[in-house]
């Protein structure tokens, strides 16, 4: 495998002119890079402020989590550089293999995964946990994009549409029964985005979206969906509920909303957020990291974060348009949808417009798997960008 990956060098076919204007290393999208970098730096600061009070309460080192996150980011940068270095077309050649490995991991997680909060989401590797669903996002996207790009047509034929649905359905089902409906929805959203751009019939997309909704409802009715997943939805629909079963969920969102709300224009100042410092918001460094931004930096901070996401999405959109081939085009569209959907869902639940789903905020939230997964995605996008003159 290693041999095939490295057969086509990024600068191959350019004779011996080195560092030409087409040299991939010279055509990195630095604006995208800076925006992602800025979000990562903001994330590190937020993780510190959100985990500090809990760690101090425990008598632990307050920098524990931010240190880990920095290690994750360094790893992520390395992985990203490698992905950038590789040609995405080459990667497509290995997509089936990677996809198969992902499926194996997703199955394995049922057997060997550690249980947290009623779900088996990750492998426990000492201080770190590997979450295969995050890896799955990249590999599934790669396979789906590659599969759709194989057919050189402006539309997607019916059989190919169904086939691509199977590609996506396998990991979605495996993730959904972990259960992690939030991540499953990211898979679905990503697939929808790719299929849309690939030219699938809008009716198919509408049909399949309704099918997904029907299957979720069926899952709820049949009891396959775990109780707490259901509560997230009822809690979302009744945000002012006094019901005891919904209480922890409702107060969680209520405190997150209050934190964002009371930040005001400039915020309470870094490390001065009372709700953040009082550890009032559960899982603030991962799921509710945006509340830390809102409380400490107010509307300005929230606008900066949203703006940076806007910049990231704009650059990916731009790269998609510039891409030389359908594969790069689809990859960019997939990454675009994934980041968009995940950021919307995460920030949305913090401010009470989407149900609580436990998806992290890309680049900002604490967590190794998703940091690396999104680094890979950015790496792919950059790879597309770097090779746009091919």
């Amino acid at each position, binding site marked *: 495998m290693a041999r095939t990956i490295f057969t086509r060098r990024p600068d191959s076919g350019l004779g011996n002119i080195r560092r030409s204007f087409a040299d991939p290393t010279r055509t990195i999208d630095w604006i995208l890079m800076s925006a992602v970098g800025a979000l990562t730096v903001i994330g590190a600061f937020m993780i510190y402020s959100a985990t500090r*009070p809990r760690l101090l*309460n425990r008598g632990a080192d307050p920098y524990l989590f931010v240190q880990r996150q920095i290690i994750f980011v360094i790893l992520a940068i390395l992985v990203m550089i490698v992905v950038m270095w590789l040609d995405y077309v080459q990667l497509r050649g290995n997509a089936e293999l990677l996809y198969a490995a992902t499926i194996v991991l997703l199955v394995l997680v049922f057997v060997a995964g550690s249980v947290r909060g009623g779900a088996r989401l990750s492998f426990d590797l000492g201080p770190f946990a590997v979450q295969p669903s995050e890896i799955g996002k990249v590999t599934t996207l790669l396979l789906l994009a590659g599969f759709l790009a194989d057919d*050189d*047509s*402006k539309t997607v034929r019916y059989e190919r549409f169904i086939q691509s649905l199977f590609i996506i359905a396998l990991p979605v089902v495996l993730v959904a029964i972990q259960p992690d409906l939030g991540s499953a929805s990211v898979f679905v959203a990503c697939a929808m*985005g790719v299929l*849309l*751009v*690939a*030219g699938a019939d809008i009716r198919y997309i509408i049909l399949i979206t309704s099918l997904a909704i029907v299957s979720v409802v069926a899952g709820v009715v049949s009891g396959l969906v775990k109780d707490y997943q259901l509560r997230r939805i009822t809690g979302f629909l009744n945000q002012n509920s006094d019901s005891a079963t919904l209480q922890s969920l409702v107060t969680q969102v209520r*405190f997150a*909303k*209050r934190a*964002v*709300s*009371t*930040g*005001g*224009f400039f915020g309470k100042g870094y490390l001065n957020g*009372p*709700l953040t*410092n*009082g*550890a*009032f*918001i559960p899982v603030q460094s991962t799921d509710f990291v945006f509340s830390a931004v*809102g409380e400490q930096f*107010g*509307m300005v901070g*929230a*606008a900066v974060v*949203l703006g940076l*996401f*806007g910049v990231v*999405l704009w650059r990916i*959109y731009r790269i*998609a*348009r510039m891409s*030389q*081939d*359908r*594969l790069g*085009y689809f990859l960019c*569209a997939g990454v*675009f*949808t994934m980041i*968009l*959907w995940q950021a*919307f869902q995460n*920030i*949305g639940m913090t*401010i*009470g*417009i989407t149900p609580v789903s436990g998806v992290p905020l890309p680049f900002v939230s604490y967590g190794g798997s998703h940091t690396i997964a999104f680094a890979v995605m950015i790496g792919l996008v950059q790879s597309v960008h770097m090779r746009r003159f091919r």
Partner: protein
Amino acid sequence: MARERNISRLGVLGIVGCVLIGLLSVRVWFLQAIDAPGLEVKVREVRTRTIKINPERGRIFDRKGRIVADNERVLTLTIERAVIAKPLARQQMWNRLSGALNMTVTQLEDRWASKRYDQLQPLPLKEDISEDLAVYIRERSEDYPGVDVREEWRREYPFAPVASHVVGFLGAIPAGEKSENYYRTLGYDPDARVGQFGVEQTYESVLRGTPGYVKYEVDSRGRFLRQLERKEPIPGNDVQLTIDLEMQQFTEQALQQQIMMRRRTEAPTVLSFGEPDPRYPEVTYYKAPAGSSVLMNHDTGEVIAMASYPNFDNRWFNAGISSEKFGQLFPTTDDPDMSILVNRAISGRYNLGSTFKPFVAFAALNTGQLPGGTKYVLRDQGTYKLESIPEERCQLNVKCVFKNANCGNGAPCKYGRVNIETALAVSSDVFFYKIGEQIFTERGNRPVLEEQVRLFGFGSPTEIDLPYEYIGTVPSRALKQRLAASGAIAEEEGKGYYVGDNVQFAIGQGLLSASPLQLAVAYATFANGGKVLRPRVVKAIWAPGTPNGASNRVNLDEGLVIQDFGAPQVVRDLAIPPEILDPIVRGLTRVITGPGVRSDFYHATTGEKLFRSFPKRALPLAGKTGTAQGAGNLPWNDSSAFAAFSKNKKYPFTASTYIEKSGFGSRSAAPVVKCLFTALIGRIQVAPAVPSDPLDPNSFEVAQPQSLPNPLCLVGTGSSVRD
């Protein structure tokens, strides 16, 4: 690779992206700009925790500074409710605590579920824990998150049961929406203990003090981050009683011992045609279930001693006993003889019998009812026939003939020629029957007698600073109607107010009722020349923290009086002229000293024999016995009353005693009063007031029995006449 792409489709995706990001921005802006002000307040609320600091309750001491109600600092273990909100966390906490606290998990869970405790304040888990346990818990705060030790005060009554009816006790806020709302608006916690009886109740607002608080910033688990604000509580004011604890103890001892002695005394046998009546047992002991005694200063209105039996130990109310045990000690009963938590000196509703006659005498003289006033003489032949009722009606069903009490020989006493002074001295019913009839019939059936006796405070509250005072009743048309309406008397009977009613009224029977305190206040009016005083049990209110002095007292010299009630409060000044006052006082003096009258044989006055050995020269007294008829007019249902005042200006005291179902006034109640006056002039040893032994929680005695160290003062020959 081909470049077949749907750029328009990508545009759709871009638009979706713009919409979603826009949606988030609008929502964030909305939250921060519109919702923020309201949420800011809520955030401040959840971030701070205010813990109330209860003030030390004011102490109560007697007129000489003996501390009768004190406070002991106790430690209470509490837990933050947030920490144990989840059932699993609660179960684990109970398991960890139950060993350390020596409580079962069920007990702890019951506390948690109980609505008695303020839901917003930390839950008290155990009161009065040891210092060691407090240190143990505090050192292991990691194992017991949210558990804290709070300092509180527990009420102590060092001299209990002495004066417990006056001092009162603390209890939970009485159930019922009204009282709960009342205490809540005053800022009490639902589990607060408030004054429920005696001075603890009437002076609750003075004794309570002002609570302080500490405000902390807390985190989501209720752990304290830092202290924001602290306001120290202001202790309650101290209260000084007019009660002299030694005299109080003596009074209680005398009363209790006399009641015990009467319970071992046989009541006279009921005779029927000279033989013991077969309907009744041959030997009946007096039941003497209850009694009360009041000693007051008739110049100032200060109550020096106020005893009520059955008494109780007010420490039972904070002994932490179970409700079953409490029910055994203080049974709920419909039998008025049995009730313990009643201060009979102020709540007793009694016929006064002949002790009421001086007020009728006053009415007669004051209204000029007697021709010639004090010179008026009546021939007392032992019976009185109503003059205003026609003979034929007497033949039918109207009671026209009223008799004097029997004179030993089975016939009504005949006192011969009596004037008002003699009539009081020998307690001639006939004389007062006549007044009772004529003051009514000769003045157009107007309630003259009622108006006159009301001047002495009968039928209206004395306004003593104690709760549950009985107002009393004075017979009148309105009273009869009211009683008939409430079913207390027959409807037929309530139709009108008749001569017969007024005749009964004139000798203190019938529908007249008063408390022993009212009797004392009324006698004090004669003693001080006509001033109806408002009686008081509180002498002064002192600034908080009167320092301790020697031997269980406060140091009165170093305290600060805030409010002094020392000045007498005159409700009404009758300014009784000497020509009215003197014959009455002379008559009352003869009750104590004699002589009686000679008619056929010598009729001694009712108190003459009893007070024979009393040092009358040192302490000249004036008083009157009374025997109130009870159910069926049976001898063992006679209740005994006596009231007397000192004529020596150095000892301005008036006393009254009432003992239920215990026989003649001179035999049961009068010896108690005699003891009180003997003690006042120091002719008998008064036991020093010493703190009592700790309350034994396993005991079944409501109060430790008390008895006189020297009961000789109770001894004396009573009169053989039922008056």
